[in-house]
């Protein structure tokens, strides 16, 4: 049995205007220490998938198992890096991360918890900014804090919901490189949700394409045959890169036929807000 297993995951949002089926039976499996990406169009249900995996919402059907245990609600063993950072604006960088460290390690002495907090601040190169508030930071720095907070939970599974989509292209590249480095050092089990095909290929061992909703499902996984440690330079010229990219783009293009996608996206967003 795989370390992370998702079987037959279904979710629909019900409003007065009717029922919107978002996910129609998602299947997914990861081994420990694997980095997997899910790539799909905006509005296809990616955030719904993260919320389900995180336990923030309940599925209509299906099952999620992490390290043998069934997921019934949110918990720090499934850390989430949210799309819009979700840092607490009244806490400094340090306190945002300390909140997670303290919550996960209530039995450790204070000195030890402080050491762990400092370690994760240093990991994302934010030691000089440790006492700043989120509003004093750039978007890239904020997302670093969010990544550090997610990792500081020492989760069995780290979920990343389009973590870099709100950043400019240069900052995004820097953060991708940093994530590559950090993952290389720690080998966490990661599910990255993204709409960026190149980001997925750069970072992931395996990529699941997502069909556009309604009733979105994951297509057959595409193995990224690139050796690690990976480097961004010249990577796009490698045959393995091009092969993965072609397979991914072909699948996404072929599945992206059905008409009402835009309407679907709007609906899903309004449902999330209603919740």
């Amino acid at each position, binding site marked *: 049995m795989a370390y992370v297993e998702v079987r037959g995951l279904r979710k629909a949002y019900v409003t007065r205007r009717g029922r919107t089926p978002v996910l129609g039976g998602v299947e997914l499996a990861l081994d420990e220490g694997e980095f997997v990406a899910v790539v799909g169009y905006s509005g296809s249900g990616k955030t719904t998938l993260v919320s389900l995996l995180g336990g923030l919402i309940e599925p209509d059907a299906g099952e999620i198992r992490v390290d043998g245990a069934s997921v019934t609600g949110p918990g720090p063993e499934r850390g*989430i890096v949210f799309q819009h950072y979700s840092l607490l604006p009244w806490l400094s960088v340090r306190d945002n991360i300390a909140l997670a460290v303290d919550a996960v390690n209530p039995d450790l002495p204070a000195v030890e918890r402080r050491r762990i907090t400092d370690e994760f601040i240093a990991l994302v190169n934010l030691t000089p900014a440790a006492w700043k508030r989120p509003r004093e930071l750039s978007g890239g720095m904020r997302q670093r804090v969010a990544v550090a907070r997610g990792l500081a939970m020492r989760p069995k599974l780290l979920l990343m919901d389009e973590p870099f989509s709100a950043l400019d292209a240069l900052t995004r590249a820097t953060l991708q490189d940093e994530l590559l480095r950090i993952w290389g050092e720690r080998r966490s089990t990661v599910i990255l949700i993204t709409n960026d095909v190149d980001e997925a290929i750069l970072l992931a061992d395996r990529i699941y394409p997502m069909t556009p909703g309604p009733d979105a499902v994951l297509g057959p996984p595409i193995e990224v045959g690139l050796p690690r440690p990976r480097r961004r330079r010249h990577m796009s010229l490698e045959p393995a890169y091009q092969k993965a990219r072609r397979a991914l783009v072909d699948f996404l293009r072929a599945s992206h036929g059905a008409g009402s996608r835009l309407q679907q996206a709007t609906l899903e967003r309004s449902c999330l807000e209603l919740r």
Partner: protein
Amino acid sequence: MGSKIRLTPQAILPVLGAACVLLAWTLVSATIAPDLPSPLRTWQESRRYLLEPFFKDGEMNQGIGRLAFYSLVRVAKGYALALAIGTPIGFLLGLSRRFHQSFDPIVQFMRPISPLAWLPLGLVIFQKSEPAAIFTIGLCAMWPTVINTAVGVRSIGQEYLNVGRVLKLSRWKMLIRIIVPATLPYVFTGYRLSLGLAWLVIVAAEMLTGTPGVGGFLWQEYNSLIYSHIILSVLTIGAIGFLLDRLMGAVEARVRVN
């Protein structure tokens, strides 16, 4: 333009506005309301109260600073009562659906009741004017705090709550680390509005109970036919109310920066 003080419209217009009001006041006192003292007469009869703000000739004949101080102390007590009761009620209304269903109708029912209606009831309950005045101030001033706090709790972003859920914070930690800080800007808006109301209520409370203070002084001077001192009191009440609002506005802005 060479002079040191720039006569910009921002500097001139408020002075112009005040001059218009003074002119209207003078005209009214010279024509249709001969009992209303003119600005000049008001100044002449009130100067001692302003220039020696802390003199004390008797219980009801004191400098305006002393009278204002009595009123401010009374307001402070009533205001403290309003915050001490209003804040937890506001949080409970925002946090608990059951509590909201039970008590929101009563809050909406009691909110529009005038201080003039509460004060006699306070006198019946406490038998003394001082606690009755504080009770009235507290009861009338707490509603903005209650309502703003409740609205603040209900408008906390789901993303902040999700952080707490992922970390499995206990109910208490969730309250202290996430819900209270996220609500604080709303709470302080409530505090500012409550202070304005508390100051509004003090005059009515002092007038009805005849206790020394700006409002009590106002009513006594009306009964003694010294009308210029009514105007003095009115202006003092306005000035202090304005200063209090600015003060709380500054505090509120500090909280909001978060």
